[in-house]
């Protein structure tokens, strides 16, 4: 039975991976923007960023996905109807899912990036500028590589949570791994086998991610010393 549905499950797994990677890209962009807005001297930038990271991290991802997918289009269409415009907004679940999950994890990444930025001693940048580097060179050659090292543990944790969170996009009708598993379970009356297979595929994703991040962390901590007990 499992063999017959394996192609379907793998297609679902590919979609899950696609949703997760695109959401991560959205989250990194929003996270960097949120991080620098929070560190900004302008209150006009700091305030919205503070609200964004607090509110989004205070609401379950399932509720946010349902709100964005079902709620926001209704409000927008109401608005269009009020101005008697003949436009109907109906976002595809894929776009709604990627944007919502990216939006949620952008808030978490903003915190991780902010911590990483603050972890690089200011003397590093000052030294780079004293060597005659331009501000952009100091950022690119000195600050960003060190920020990356401090940001990696946070990014890796959030990625692991993110890839598991994508399971909820099955609720808004995406044919992801979870939905394919549920379909196969319903058709074959063997739910344990199929949800078990789904669980194993997720476990494979998270295990591989952990290996990849361990390698990255080693690579980016070259030249740092750790105290030995």
């Amino acid at each position: 039975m499992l063999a017959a549905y394996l192609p379907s499950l793998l297609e679902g797994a590919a979609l899950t991976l696609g949703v997760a990677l695109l959401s991560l890209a959205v989250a990194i962009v929003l996270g960097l923007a949120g991080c620098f807005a929070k560190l900004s001297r302008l209150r006009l930038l700091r305030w919205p960023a503070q609200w964004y990271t607090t509110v989004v991290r205070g609401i379950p991802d399932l509720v946010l996905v349902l709100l964005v997918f079902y709620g926001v289009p209704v409000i927008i269409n109401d608005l269009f109807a009020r101005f008697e415009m003949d436009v109907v907004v109906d976002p595809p679940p894929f776009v709604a899912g990627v944007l919502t999950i990216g939006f949620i994890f952008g808030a978490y990444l903003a915190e991780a990036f902010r911590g990483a930025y603050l972890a690089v001693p200011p003397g590093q940048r000052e030294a780079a500028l004293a060597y005659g580097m331009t501000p952009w060179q100091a950022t690119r050659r000195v600050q960003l590589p060190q920020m990356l090292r401090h940001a990696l543990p946070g990014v890796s944790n959030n990625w692991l949570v993110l890839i598991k969170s994508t399971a909820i996009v099955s609720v808004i009708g995406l044919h992801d791994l979870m939905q394919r598993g549920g379909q196969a379970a319903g058709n074959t009356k063997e739910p344990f086998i199929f949800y078990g297979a789904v669980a194993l595929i997720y476990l494979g994703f998270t295990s591989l991610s952990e290996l990849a991040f361990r390698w990255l962390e080693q690579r980016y901590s070259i030249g740092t010393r750790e105290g030995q007990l």
Partner: protein
Amino acid sequence: MQWDVIADNFPLYLSGAWVTVQLLLVSLACGILIAVPLGVLRALGGPASRLIWLYTYAFRGTPMLVQLFLIYYGLGQFEAVRASFAWEWLQNAWFCAVLAFVLNTAAYTTEIVAGAIKALPAGEIEAAKAYGMDRLTLLRRIVLPQALRRALPAYGNEAIFMLHGTSLAMLVTIADLTGVAKRLYATHYTPFEAYLTAGAFYLGMTLGMVALFRWAEERWLKPLLPR
């Protein structure tokens, strides 16, 4: 916008919030009861530690949604399960949801406790041994009080993740906060207002928990830290 629908059904939200709180408290309480002994064993090393690692690895590496469906829909596949005494329980959505939440949070909490124990300063344990404490006394008087305090910040995060995780209960027919919102959406077609209100409730509860854990850290963790 039809906020009057929300205002008319406000008691429904309160009952949903109460269900969410119950799910959370029962799951966290059972989770801690399982996680503390497992965390100690996990920190001690040996074959038991590796077995526990297998459990925490599996539950931390898969979505809680899959775990919930595996328990609620999956177990009924087997004739032996359906014939057993447990079947009456496993047909109950509430029981399955709590079981999944407990197993999930216990896995994360076990690793938090074990991590905190391993991170204890070696000197504290050596000092206790030098005083002649046996292992149980050492555990009870030194290791657990120290480690559980140091685990507070990480555990606070886990508890908030669990609050958010309980929203999955709605997918197995439970009328928690999210389930109530879905019901209002279905009967009045007000998805935006319904889910936004649920979100506001969760946000309030999250901020409350943040304040609670901050207070607990002030009370129990701060005196330990270097000044």
